[in-house]
């Protein structure tokens, strides 16, 4: 069972209490964007074997959105952080880098 700590309310919630919503930090292109940009926004996804940044929502709790950094190979959770950011916090990136020296770093 995957357990994530909601940074909004501080509760360690298991996955039945949460809703996963895919890749985080996507650029949301709007009207007037090129076909390439719209395709990238709507369909193209990072699908890494390893470190992944995701959007989650604490649906059966405080109802708020947050972000999580997780390993898709081991299901290890590196940490969670608020959704009001365009990229993961530097200390979290450093922590992941320490645990996974081969990781290429955060790629938008």
């Amino acid at each position: 069972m995957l357990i994530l700590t909601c940074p909004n309310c501080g509760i360690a919630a298991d996955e039945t209490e949460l809703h996963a919503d895919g890749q985080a930090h996507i650029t949301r292109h709007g009207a007037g964007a090129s076909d390439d940009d719209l395709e990238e926004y709507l369909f193209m996804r990072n699908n890494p074997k390893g470190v992944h940044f995701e959007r989650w929502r604490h649906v059966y709790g405080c109802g708020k959105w947050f972000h999580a950094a997780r390993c898709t190979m081991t299901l290890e959770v590196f940490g969670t952080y608020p959704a009001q950011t365009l990229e993961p916090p530097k200390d979290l990136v450093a922590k992941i880098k320490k645990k996974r020296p081969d990781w290429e770093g955060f790629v938008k």
Partner: protein
Amino acid sequence: MKRYSAFAIAREAARYHTGWERAWRSPEPKSHYDVIIIGAGGHGLATAYYLGKNYGITNVAVIEKGWLGGGNTGRNTTIIRSNYLQDPSAAIYEKARSLYETMSQDLNYNVMFSPRGVIMLAQTEHEIRGYQRTAHANALQGVKTEWIGPERVKQLVPIIELSGPRYPVLGGLWQSRGGTARHDAVAWGYARACSDMGMDIIQQCEVTGIDKSGGNVTGIQTTKGAIKCNKLGMVVAGNSGHLADMAGFRLPLESVALQALVSEPIKPCMDVVVMANTVHGYMSQSDKGEMVIGGGTDGFNNYTQRGSFHHLEETVRALIETFPMISRLKMLRHWGGIVDVTGDRSPIIGTTPVGNCYINCGWGTGGFKAIPGSGWAMAEVIATGEPQGLAAEFGLNRFQEGRFIDESVAAGVAH
């Protein structure tokens, strides 16, 4: 290759079974092939087989990082059906289903295709309308399905409980020519036939890099050394994104875990496949007597080949309401496979941004039933270099062009 036959069994019985050959060779890789297929699962092996059979291309290697058929080909619930809503889907799945009918004879290998029939239960008013629409679409596509009422469902599946408290069975979409097959045998049969045509199946050989020159693929780097090729086919399901990364392009895919489980074997009690999409469970009985149960996918990216326990609980809970007699069955085995899911729940077959590099992926939760049709279509794309035939509509560019083959409404569940 010595043919399998009743005579061969008698001959071997008379000499203590000393004359059986290995079903396929395990050679070391050559330095160059006309075509390399990455992935020796059902889809990869079928692609190689139809390259040889339909186009006479036999200087082919099939590269596998694990063992043959050890991915999703060995991790599914073996259901075969073609009752899809959209025309391109119905065409390729129906081609696959029809090829399953003659596969044992074609391959001289018993894949135990059992056209026992598949019912998709309607348990809401919306599903009644949806499945009636699918039945009409299938009639136009030349796929034989029919809408049946609850009495007929009960006749076909005596162990079913029609009057469930929350989701009574209101009817179903019945495809009498759907069924199941022995999943491992499909991979083994194709492998034997490919090997017999002179193709090399190289197991325990992981691809570590893809060599390009001037935007075209020239070969691959593997744990058994570099291998050159004229054309490269990637047929690796859940690992497609990882491989595309090596080749330098992106895919509209996310890999998630899909789970299934089987019970202890019991006496024959159900001779059709039943799918209950609203409550999200499906079940059939294997030839050994085990109840084979399929569950749902997790909502998050996962490469671990195991899924979340609560999905199993939900599936089993739903099936106990539908089939009360299974409530005391013990479950024997449980497994997960990594499925690659696209935005419209339809596969991607075709060319890639890299020259001479072709991809077949995105079968999501429904790949097993498609194996022969998928291989047939992929072989045509590789042999001709053009996305045509059954694959024509399934190109990677459909997401940019907005030409979706939307099966997420029609069958947006594990299938």
